[in-house]
Each structure stands twice: as C-alpha cells, then as structure tokens.
C-alpha cells in the first residue's frame, strides 16, 4: 500500500481490442439489442418477425465466424470495461462453448421461422419475438462467459425470458405447467447461487480460468467437494436429470409448439454445458470422486425417460420424456470423463438440440393436420403427405440412435468409452434405453403416420413456414450422420480443451505462461 499511484497497465487493458475478437461479444450483444428494440416496437406486430428472423440469421453467421476463429487460433478472451481478469468480467470463447452457441443459434433461427406459421398476432403482440431474442442472448451468454457469477446472470436472463414464453397464450394448462416449471427452476438457480457464494468465499475470485488454476494448487486445503456436489445438484436440476427431472415432463407440453421446440433445444442443454464446464474444467478431481453417482443418475435418467416415453399417449408428453432420456446419455459421458465420454456428451447435446427441436415441430404439425395429439386418435399422416412422413422418419431414426443419422455417433462414443473402462452396466443401460426409445418411436410412427385415419382428416393447409425449418433440421441430422468426421474431431478437441484448460487459461492470462 506504499504507492499512491498504481501502475494502471497491471489492471487495465490499454491496447485496443483486435477487431476479430469482437466476435466474442457480438452474438450476445446483437440479440440483446434487437430484443430491446422489439420490446419498444411491441405494437408493430408486422415488424417483429421481419426484424427478428434476419437478426437470428446474423447471429448464426457470427457464431460460425467465431467457430472458425476459435478453431484456428484457440480460445479467445475479451474483458468488460477494460478491467483485466480476474477483476473484470471476462468472456472467453473456447471450442466447447462456441459449438453449443452455434447449435443454439441454428435452433433459434429454425424456431423463429417456424413461429411465422405457428405463433399468431396475439402472441406476437405479447412479445414472442423479444422473449425469443432475449432467450438467445441468455443462452449464448451462458455458453461464452468466462465468469461464474456472470454465468448465473445469463441463467436468470434465459429463465425470465422462458417464463415469458411458457405463459404466452395464458391457457389454464399453461399456467399449471408454468407453476411447476417456474418454482423448480428458481430453486435450481438459487442453489447455483449458493454454490457460487461458497466458491467466492473459498477462492476469492469468480473468473473460471483463475478458479481452474487456484483449484489445482489449493485443492487439498479447501472443501471443494461441497462445491462440486452443489453444482452437480443445481445444474442436474436445470438439465432435468433423475431424480430432479419431474418439472420437465410436467411443463414442456403445455406452451405453444414452437415454444416447446425451443425449450427442448435450448434450455436443458445449458444445464449440461454448465455441468461440463464446472465439473470437467474446474473440478476434475471432484468429478472423478463423484463419477459413480453421476453414472447412476445418468443410467436412471435414460431408463426413466425411455420408460416414461413408452407410457404416454400425448405425443408432446412422449417427447418431454425423450428429452429427459437424452440427458442421461450426456450425464454418462460426463461420468466417464475421458475424451471419448465428454466428447460424446458434447456431440449428443448438439444432436439432441437439433433433433428434439425438430421432433416437437413435427409433433406440432402432426397435431395441426389431424386435430389431436392423442396417440389413440392420430393416424393417416403418411397418406396426407409423404414428404412430411419422410422427414419425420429421419427424425425418428435419429432420436433412436440408429445409423446413418446423427444420434448414432455420440452413442457409439459414449458406449465405447464406457466399455473401455469396464463399466459394462453403463453401456448396457445406454443400449437398453436406445432400444426402448426405438420401440416408443416406432410405435409413434406406426400409429400416427402409417395407420389409416379413422375418419377424414380436417381440411387444413400444409403450412410451408412450419415445414421449412423442419426440413432444415432433418437435413442437419442426416448430414452429421453421414459425414460425422469434422464434428467428431471438433468435439474431441473441445473435450480436450475442457479437460486440460491450459490454452483457456493462457487466453485469459496471457502474461502468466
């Protein structure tokens, strides 16, 4: 404390940020700004979609550029207000985060196009598009931030936007579902905040790179196991892992189909991403200790989800249980912790974002064409449109994990990683849940598409706006099933980047190493 004049270069960034590094914040800043503008233009119903869809397309482009930048140069960091980390809040984009962000942006763009045909003027007037853009800002911010408290703030941003989306329409069943969704997610984020308070009390820092370094040095003296267990519970609840998954099948079928599709693609995967970030990068030793618990929870989540899907007659509720089942595979990858396991978990998360969103859209279209979501009454959809039937079949194969579609490769990766360390029961659980999912979806396709309709289907037009994003996502599922090499190597480098964060740390603290 002797000096009265400090050397500011130790605390502040004094050189201008390279232009390419601005890509780190643009995918968050742009939807946030557009969301604010659209909130002000709430009454101009026509402007809403005309602005939101191009903005989301631009976000996809920015995320793709950022992916190319990060893939070429390693993790990129930008700090807020020129304060150097660990004082300033850092945004650090590494391969894992950017892959998630790009998939989220693609799903959101598909959702915004689907909304053209599914979301009416009334819902637009009550802010569908602003909520969607703020949801995208929150999700992308969570994927790109390098600060634990900032991650909490982005969780709250996406949570409050999802509250707005889930009650859009204000039907009694939505309010019922929203209550379960809102209370349990609020408890989960509060647990996250509790863990973050302890984390700050122990380490005196909230910067992820700083924590990764300090945890490696001071692990023996600190109760880090408590932190890891609390994060596992909090993010497990957000990700809808057994036994804290009950909010998901109770609420995901209640809102508008576009909203369900967006939730299935975006929300639980943020929980999975946060689990990977905290348990693989920050607390790897503690994750190893907890791996049996995580594996048990993963196996139970897969089987409970698949059995739940078998027992549903409402196809939207069937899909809700399928989302839960997929989370189990990602948890198994996390429990294994090897590059194959974590890489498989990331791949499965990306696959699940695309395919579950598309399946909800397909279910919505099926419901619109036949006037019901009940498996007992659905039928005749193949006769109605062979193209729609073909797209749905692609998705049914992909979600069941059958080749040559995108669900096959991550399941191979995780199963192989499980067999490599002799966890045969975990591999068996993955295969059993895949088998049960195949039965559930084969029955769905058989009854709703192939079975002849009992009466005449209602005379409804086939909406092109709903079919277009569905086709786009189905093509993605087929593409990454046929040509998985690029993505396989990307998720493996992403998993290595999480397991050995030295490049991440160097990007935040360039002068240290």
């Amino acid at each position, binding site marked *: 404390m002797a000096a009265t004049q400090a050397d500011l270069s130790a605390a502040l960034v004094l050189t201008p940020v390279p232009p390419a590094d601005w890509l780190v914040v643009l995918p968050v800043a742009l939807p946030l700004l557009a969301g604010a503008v659209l909130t002000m233009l709430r009454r101009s119903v026509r402007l809403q979609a005309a602005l939101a869809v191009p903005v989301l397309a631009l976000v996809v482009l920015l995320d793709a550029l950022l992916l190319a930048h990060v893939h070429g140069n390693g993790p990129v960091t930008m700090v807020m207000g020129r304060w150097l980390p660990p004082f300033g809040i850092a945004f650090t984009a590494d391969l894992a985060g950017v892959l998630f962000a790009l998939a989220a942006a693609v799903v959101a763009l598909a959702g915004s196009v689907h909304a053209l045909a599914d979301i009416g003027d009334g819902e637009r007037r009550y802010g569908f598009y602003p909520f969607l853009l703020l949801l995208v800002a929150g999700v992308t911010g969570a994927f790109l931030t390098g600060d634990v408290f900032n991650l909490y703030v982005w969780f709250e941003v996406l949570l409050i936007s999802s509250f707005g989306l889930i009650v859009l329409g204000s039907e009694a069943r939505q309010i019922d579902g929203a209550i379960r969704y809102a209370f349990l997610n*609020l*408890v989960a984020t509060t647990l996250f905040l509790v863990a973050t*308070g302890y984390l700050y*009390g122990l380490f005196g820092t909230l910067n992820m790179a700083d924590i990764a370094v300090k945890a490696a040095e001071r692990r023996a003296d600190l109760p880090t196991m408590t932190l890891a267990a609390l994060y596992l519970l909090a993010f497990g609840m957000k990700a809808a892992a057994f036994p804290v998954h009950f909010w998901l099948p109770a609420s995901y079928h209640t809102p508008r189909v576009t909203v369900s599709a967006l939730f299935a693609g975006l929300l639980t995967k943020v929980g999975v991403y946060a689990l990977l970030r905290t348990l693989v990068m920050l607390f790897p030793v503690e994750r190893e200790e907890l791996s049996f618990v995580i594996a048990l929870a993963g196996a139970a989540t897969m089987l409970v989800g698949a059995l739940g899907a078998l027992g549903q*007659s409402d196809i939207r509720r069937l899909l809700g249980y399928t989302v839960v089942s997929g989370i189990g595979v990602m948890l198994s990858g996390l429990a294994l912790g090897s590059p194959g396991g974590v890489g498989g978990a990331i791949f499965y998360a990306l696959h699940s974002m695309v395919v579950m969103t598309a399946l909800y859209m397909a279910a919505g279209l099926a419901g619109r064409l036949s006037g019901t979501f009940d498996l007992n009454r659905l039928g005749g959809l193949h006769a109605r449109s062979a193209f729609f039937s073909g797209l749905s079949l692609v998705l049914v194969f992909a979600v069941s994990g059958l080749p040559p579609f995108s669900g096959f490769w991550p399941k191979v990766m995780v199963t192989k990683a499980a067999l490599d360390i002799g966890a045969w029961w975990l591999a068996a659980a993955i295969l059993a849940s895949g088998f049960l999912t195949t039965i559930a979806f084969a029955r769905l396709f058989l009854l709703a598409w192939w079975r002849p309709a009992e009466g005449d289907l209602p005379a409804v037009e086939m909406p092109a706006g709903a079919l277009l994003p569905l086709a786009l996502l189905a093509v993605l599922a087929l593409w990454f099933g046929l040509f998985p090499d690029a993505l396989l190597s990307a998720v493996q480098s992403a998993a290595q980047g999480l397991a050995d964060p030295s490049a991440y740390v160097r990007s935040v603290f360039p002068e240290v190493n």
Partner: protein
Amino acid sequence: MELLFVLLVAVFFAAAVYLMLSKALVRMLLGTVLLANAVNLLLFASGRVLRAVPPIIPAGRDVPAALTANPLPQALILTAIVISFSFFAFLLVLVYRAWQDLGTDVANEMRIAEPEDEPAPPAGY
C-alpha cells in the same frame, strides 16, 4: 460475528425449505422469498464480515489508504436482489392467475396439464 451470521443464514434456509415443502402455493412463494434472502446473507458472509471503512479512494490516489470492506459481495447481492425481486413479482402474478383460472392454490389439485385419467397408449392397431 461470523458465527451469528451463519446461524441466521441457517434459520433462514430452514424456514425457506419448510415453507417450500408446503402444498399451498402462497407458502411456497414466501419460501422462495426467504430462500433468496438467505442466499443474499450467505453471499455477504462469503466476502468476510469485518470492521473496515467503505472502499472509497481519496482524490489524488489510485489505491486505498487503509484496509477497506470488500465491495464485490455487495455488488453480487445487489444483482441477486434485483433478480429475486423480479422473479417474486412474476411468481406472485402467476400464482394469482392460477388461483383465478384453476380455482385453487394447492399444487396437488392442479391436474389440468397432467390429467389423472389420461388413457394409456394403444397396444396395437
């Protein structure tokens, strides 16, 4: 001083969990308010409780003259207060709407989204 804080936080958490285990939504709502405040106190304690001056740096200096209080937990708490208050406002309206539209504030009696008598899926064609 810190022991006192810890006990206070523990009482807050216990009361919050007790209230949230209730079936009545209004009690659950009050439980979430108490929970948020319990966490705020916990965040405050995590920055260490000590007798120190406010972190204000006199003019002409870049570093504080003496030991100051930690301003970061207060910034965290401020953020958390804003967030938890807005969530409380949303949940309050939601619960009120549930009472108006569903005619009950007991969680177990709300079965519209998940009807008890839903038919099983067909076993065959």
